């Protein structure tokens, strides 16, 4: 089964195509989406065990020799991200059954979600820089459809801005690939890495590295390039926001991580210092935003920005603790952001508003929701037994090892601000005098809270059992820190 590493990309794609034929049959769409996601999950878990036992898997399509065909590469980094993406999509789809509404379900909502997952998984797995551009476009086009689906006034207005920013960054991506091709003469990522090592990273390659940072920084919401994110993400309905918040910026982070650990590793003093400074500024900007708003969605959206900064800070350190910590934190952040967005989606559905000042006293009527939210909030901030702790601990340890004392202090202080921002939601929404709620359907509420609860439980398992995940994470950071493992797997003679 050498095609195993293609299954997490092909299966969602296949099911999305099948779904196009059942536009009006919502029950069939729901069932097929869940079946497709379960099968993809099984395939990705099998793939993960194969990667764990046999090292990096690579497959050059069409049996061409490696630098000449399109290579797909599954190392521990990509297979972990692929598996997590599938799991999160599964629970968000379950949540969508209740909350997205029949009108949207009839207009290709589920196919779009599966196409988005195809693009995300493809971008995580590809070993070819132009193919990565194509998979970016696949996921972006699906996200354009999802962000505008429904056609409310606000959605139309914000999706124009979202699409415009992404069109510009895609054009920049193409231009950057063109420049890289003119210097290196190849688009295969392993081959690019070899060629850059041969010519010893002259100045032009460093310029291209910064251009890549610009391109992926727009996708991943890095400091001066995150301006589009708060407005655009607040527009679509909650499950779409959860999907975007958990998956889309992480693709940008992954692309930065991949290029900055595989290509541009010979002049760390320029590229990685820049990444280091920008990630610190990203954390600060996110912290300011998270404290500034009284709107549930905006607080959580700025928490995405903070997490982007923390992960990229871990990557910029380029030592083992930092990289392992970044991987730990990346997976944690995908799970916990999915859970938190679903939980605040339920809060918004119950209270009918996203303004903190207009809610209160939910603990008296919806106690389980309150406890779930509290656990997820502590997990996000990184209170020890929960999932955010190990990653941040390793990143801070790596920062001290690398001598970046101020960086680690800012990371630790940012945890306090994250905690403050999410606990503020808890205090305003769950404590105090109950406000009058519109009558909600208790059955729908119970059905919505199940996927959110399972995600919270997953994050608890991930935090409590972090010992089990250590071998996987250290495998991932080993591949990132030793590009030769990746190159040998692709360019095997």
């Amino acid at each position, binding site marked *: 089964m050498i095609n195993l590493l293609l299954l997490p990309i092909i299966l969602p794609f296949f099911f999305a195509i099948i779904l196009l034929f059942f536009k009006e049959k919502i029950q069939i769409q729901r069932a097929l989406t869940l079946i497709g996601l379960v099968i993809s999950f099984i395939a990705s878990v099998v793939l993960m065990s194969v990667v764990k036992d046999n090292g990096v898997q690579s497959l050059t399509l069409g049996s061409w020799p490696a630098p000449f065909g399109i290579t797909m590469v599954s190392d521990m980094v990509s297979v972990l991200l692929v598996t997590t993406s599938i799991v999160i999509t599964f629970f968000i789809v379950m949540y969508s059954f209740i909350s997205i509404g029949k009108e949207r379900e009839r207009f290709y909502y589920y196919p779009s979600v599966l196409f988005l997952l195809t693009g995300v998984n493809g971008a995580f797995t590809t070993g070819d820089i*132009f193919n990565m*551009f*194509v998979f970016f*476009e696949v996921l972006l*086009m699906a996200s*354009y459809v999802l962000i*505008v689906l429904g*056609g409310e*006034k*606000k959605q*139309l*207005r914000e*999706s*124009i801005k979202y*699409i*415009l920013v992404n*069109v*510009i960054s*895609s*054009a*920049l991506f*193409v*231009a950057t*690939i*063109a*420049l890289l*091709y*003119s210097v290196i003469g190849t*688009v295969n990522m392993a081959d690019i890495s070899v060629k850059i090592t041969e010519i010893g990273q002259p100045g032009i390659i460093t310029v291209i590295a910064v251009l890549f940072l610009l391109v992926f920084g727009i996708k991943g919401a890095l400091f001066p390039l995150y301006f589009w994110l708060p407005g655009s993400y*607040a527009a679509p309905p909650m499950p779409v926001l959860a999907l975007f918040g958990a998956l889309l910026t992480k693709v940008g982070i992954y692309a930065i991580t991949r290029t900055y650990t595989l290509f541009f590793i010979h002049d760390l003093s320029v590229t990685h210092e820049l990444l280091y400074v920008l990630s610190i500024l990203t954390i600060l900007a996110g912290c300011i935003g998270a404290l500034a708003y009284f*709107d549930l969605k905006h607080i959580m959206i700025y928490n995405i920005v903070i997490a982007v900064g923390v992960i990229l800070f871990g990557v910029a350190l380029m030592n083992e603790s930092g990289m392992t910590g970044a991987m730990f934190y990346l997976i944690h952040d995908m799970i916990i952001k999915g859970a938190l967005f679903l939980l605040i989606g339920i809060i918004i559905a119950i209270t009918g508003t*996203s*303004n903190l000042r207009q809610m209160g006293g939910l603990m008296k009527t919806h106690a389980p929701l309150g406890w779930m939210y509290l656990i997820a909030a502590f997990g996000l901030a990184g209170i020890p037994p929960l999932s955010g702790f190990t990653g941040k601990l390793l990143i801070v340890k790596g920062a001290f090892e690398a001598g970046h004392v101020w960086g680690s202090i800012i990371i630790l202080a940012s945890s306090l601000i994250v905690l403050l921002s999410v606990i503020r939601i808890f205090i305003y929404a769950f404590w105090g005098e109950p406000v009058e709620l519109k009558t909600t359907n208790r059955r729908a509420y119970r059905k919505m809270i199940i996927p959110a609860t399972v995600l919270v439980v997953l994050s608890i398992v991930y935090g409590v059992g972090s010992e089990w995940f250590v071998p996987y994470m250290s495998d991932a950071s080993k591949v990132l820190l030793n590009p030769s493992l990746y190159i040998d797997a692709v360019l095997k003679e």
Partner: protein
Amino acid sequence: MEFVMSIIIGILFMAAVYLILSRSLLRIILGTGLLSHGAHLLILTMGGLGGTSPPVLAEGVTDYADPLPQALILTAIVISFGVTAFILVLFYRTYAEHQTDNMNLMKGNDEHD
């Protein structure tokens, strides 16, 4: 030849940036069109403008143009074509819904939508 192409691509990028920074929706979309033209020409130029014959196998021809950039451009063209079609319809819908094509009037937050 590459030098001339670089100047032209620079002018295309300049015009694209100027148009994208304007207020009218239609000018913005013209800007994205120019931007993708610039990017596609950049791939072609950066692949090198050498080679005397098209990359088609033929008897006795040895000096081919580099086929890879042409394939990359073809991919990028259809992608940007799809996205442009989507944006045009989106702009049309937005114009119908908001009754304006002025980006400055498309602000708003939750308080006043």
